């Protein structure tokens, strides 16, 4: 650059701009800003929609020009093709009207009010109910009459009814399951004895005797359970809340069928929050109901986390060892280069192909062989495969295979970033190659390997297509890891949040009602992946402080 001020003035602005390089700053910064805007926009949309799902919205009583009255939540507002405004109202009461939602043009609506007694009822079956409480009944008796009184009495009695219902439900789900397993174990023992010694063997006769004993004991216990559930259900019998709908019909809802009810138009902020938290609690901690479009997603959360962690446990050693050989032992040559290219290409194979491979090889070949060898009695007795069908283990293995290239590539990068001077220092101390790798190279490369694992986990947790083939089901309430022996059940089918998004969003009979759930599930999945990543990043940060930071 010349120091002559006169010459500088003569330079063209074009040259000055290029020389300063500011155009490039703007270009690069602009690209980053665009990418950020898209990411933040997408995440922001998911979060805002997902978080709002459980917030109680006001109920509007709408009087139509034709004299009809409906009670519902406004869920959408847009313009009809002719340009006039219209609203989508969640009218609920499917059993009366045959629909969950209805569009109303602004011109049809005569008046809109928000009556204080308007009540939203979430039921076990049949979707929501909107109406005004009129009487609380027990047996033939009226416990409370009048809107206010009935609502107050409902608040008093509903928790007890609900508790009894839960107890009965638990007995049916857990205790009866234990009995069934006992019975099945005894039956399998008979089959096992028959397979071992033939149909006439004394071992089989003994097993048959034992089975009879077990069956008798189970039947006795079953009867005791029947007694208890019958008692609990009898306690709930006759309790009902009578509603009047906006159209004037009278409907009696059994109290045991009501999951929760609230009157949104007169909730204070604190009560609103209470409803909100309680609905979130149900969402996170309960089983789904109504074809997954209501209730909770707990089995799916559990399945997602279990599968992701097992996948990470499987892919980490496998990928790291493969990368170690490739980087530390294999001689540089065309063969190594070809292997490396092949691994990179594996990352581009469509994931459904992995799913098909997992089903064909893991489930049918590997699982089939395991069944033949170890679970033959179950195969003979039930005609059902144990490992020879989709399950948690096979799904995790399939995803481990899918994410293997990510881990191998990241590990190779991390290994090549270990300074050669460290390796030489170790060799000079008389260490063998393996000692050098184990004590120097691997610890030093660990943070980089963790990065690969983080990427693999994020990729694996969001996969859907291969999982549909190798073990994810629409509904699987038996958790793959639970309190019954042997606690981990790798052969069980499971639920997965990413699949649930597809199922609830596109396979639901009541898709309009399921839509907010889709956002909430997506939000939850993103949050879980973020949480897993934050945990892994935290571990990586600790490792990095310990092994990599070099002060100079």
């Amino acid at each position, binding site marked *: 650059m010349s120091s002559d001020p006169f010459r500088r003035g003569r330079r063209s602005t074009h040259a000055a701009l290029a020389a300063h390089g500011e155009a490039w700053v703007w270009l690069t910064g602009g690209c980053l800003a665009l990418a950020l805007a898209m990411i933040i926009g997408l995440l922001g949309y998911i979060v805002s929609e997902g978080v709002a799902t459980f917030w109680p919205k006001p109920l509007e009583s709408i009087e139509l020009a034709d004299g009809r009255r409906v009670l519902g939540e406004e869920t959408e507002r847009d313009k009809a093709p002719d340009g006039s405004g219209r609203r989508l109202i969640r009218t609920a009461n499917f059993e009366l009207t045959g629909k969950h939602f209805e569009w109303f043009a602004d011109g049809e609506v005569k008046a809109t009010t928000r009556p204080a007694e308007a009540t939203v009822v979430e039921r076990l079956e049949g979707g929501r109910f909107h109406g005004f409480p009129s009487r609380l009944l027990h047996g033939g008796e009226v416990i409370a009459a009048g809107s206010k009184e009935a609502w107050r009495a409902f608040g008093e009695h509903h928790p007890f009814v609900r508790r009894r219902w839960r107890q009965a439900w638990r007995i049916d789900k857990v205790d009866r399951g234990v009995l069934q397993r006992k019975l099945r174990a005894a039956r399998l023992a008979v089959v096992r004895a028959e397979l071992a010694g033939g149909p006439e063997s004394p071992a089989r006769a003994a097993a048959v005797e034992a089975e009879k004993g077990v069956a008798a004991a189970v039947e006795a216990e079953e009867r005791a359970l029947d007694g208890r559930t019958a008692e609990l259900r009898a306690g709930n019998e006759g309790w009902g809340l009578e509603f009047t709908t906006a159209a004037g019909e009278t409907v009696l809802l059994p109290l045991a069928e009501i999951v929760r009810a609230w009157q949104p138009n007169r909730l204070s902020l604190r009560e609103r929050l209470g409803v909100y938290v309680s609905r979130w609690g149900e969402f996170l901690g309960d089983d789904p109901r109504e074809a997954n479009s209501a209730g909770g997603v707990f089995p799916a959360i559990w399945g997602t986390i279990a599968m992701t962690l097992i996948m990470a446990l499987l892919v980490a050693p496998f990928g790291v060892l493969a990368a170690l050989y490739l980087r530390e032992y294999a*001689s540089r040559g065309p063969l190594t280069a070809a292997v490396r290219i092949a691994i990179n290409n594996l990352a581009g194979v469509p994931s459904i192909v992995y799913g098909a491979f997992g089903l064909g090889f893991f489930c049918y070949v590997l699982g089939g062989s395991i069944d033949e060898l170890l679970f033959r009695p179950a195969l003979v007795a039930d005609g059902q495969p144990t490992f020879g069908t989709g399950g948690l283990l096979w799904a995790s293995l399939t995803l481990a295979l899918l994410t293997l290239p990510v881990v191998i590539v990241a590990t190779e990068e991390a290994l090549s970033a270990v300074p050669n001077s460290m390796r030489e220092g170790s060799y000079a101390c008389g260490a*063998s190659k393996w000692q050098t790798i184990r004590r120097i190279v691997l610890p030093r490369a660990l943070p980089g390997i963790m990065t690969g694992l983080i990427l693999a986990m994020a990729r694996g947790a969001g996969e859907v297509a291969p999982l549909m083939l190798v073990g994810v089901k629409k509904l699987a309430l038996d958790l793959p890891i639970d309190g019954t022996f042997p606690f981990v059940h790798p052969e069980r089918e499971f639920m997965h949040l990413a699949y649930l998004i597809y199922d609830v969003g596109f396979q639901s009979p009541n898709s309009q009602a399921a839509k907010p759930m889709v956002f909430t599930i997506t939000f939850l999945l993103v949050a879980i992946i973020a949480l897993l990543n934050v945990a892994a990043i935290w571990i990586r940060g600790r490792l990095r402080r310990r*092994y990599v930071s070099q002060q100079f």
Partner: protein
Amino acid sequence: MSTPPPPAEPRTPTSPAGAAVDRLAVVAAGGQVPAEIHERVRQTPAVLEIDHFNLWYGTKQALHSITMPIPHGKVTALVGPSGCGKSTLLRSVNRLNDLVPSVRISGEMRLNGDPIYDKRMDVIELRKRMGMVFQRPNPFPMSIYENVVYALRIDGESRRAVLDEVCERSLRGAALWDEVKDRLGESALGLSGGQQQRLCIARAIAAEPEVLLLDEPCSALDPIATGKVEDLIQELRGLYSVLIVTHNMQQASRSSDYTAFMYLGRLIEYGPTTDIFTKPVLRETEAYVTGRFG
């Protein structure tokens, strides 16, 4: 400098001072010249004998028929301009060059009589008999304590008392004990550059090596750290047989007993340090050590 210069320097008749032929020019032209090795080098028993040693990187020859004994218990410095093969020679001694795929060698080296390049020689056992310190400090990603006892650990030593004793002795030997004795469990990567290099020396002497190889140990250090490491080399004198590569003439003249001048893969002159620096046989050596060339 431990040996005073003798009154009458025996000069070999093959190369009288001021000979007409310029050996460096001959070498640069690809020719071979006989090395000028002073008699007094051979008077001390050798810990390491290098015998007609050649080394090629692929087709390029890096070392040309080097023959030199390394005296026992003394500090021997290798000097010469960049690329003259000093470091290659050093790395050949503990066979670190084996890790470079294209390297070929011929000739022999013997450590206390054992042939280093013999087929039956176990490289790992061989390296355990030597210690090496590199240009840049290369502490391992572990604690200070584990760094020092690394050589013992890989040998399977796990008795705490033995390890503790070796750790303290080595760190004291490397003049680092007082600085780190209260934080032996902390990461070695948190030390300063000079401390790291002294830690590497401690690591190298932990296994009581027969030869200590130092490859420009001060080139990555600041002057104060360099001074400390040089003082340390002075203290190691007499305790260990040290072979040190250096670019720094003052360092060579201050801290070594013998000095070898190398040029383009050849050994040019080798003798007691005082002689090499004050009255070398060859004027080429004189030109180099006085800084007129190189």
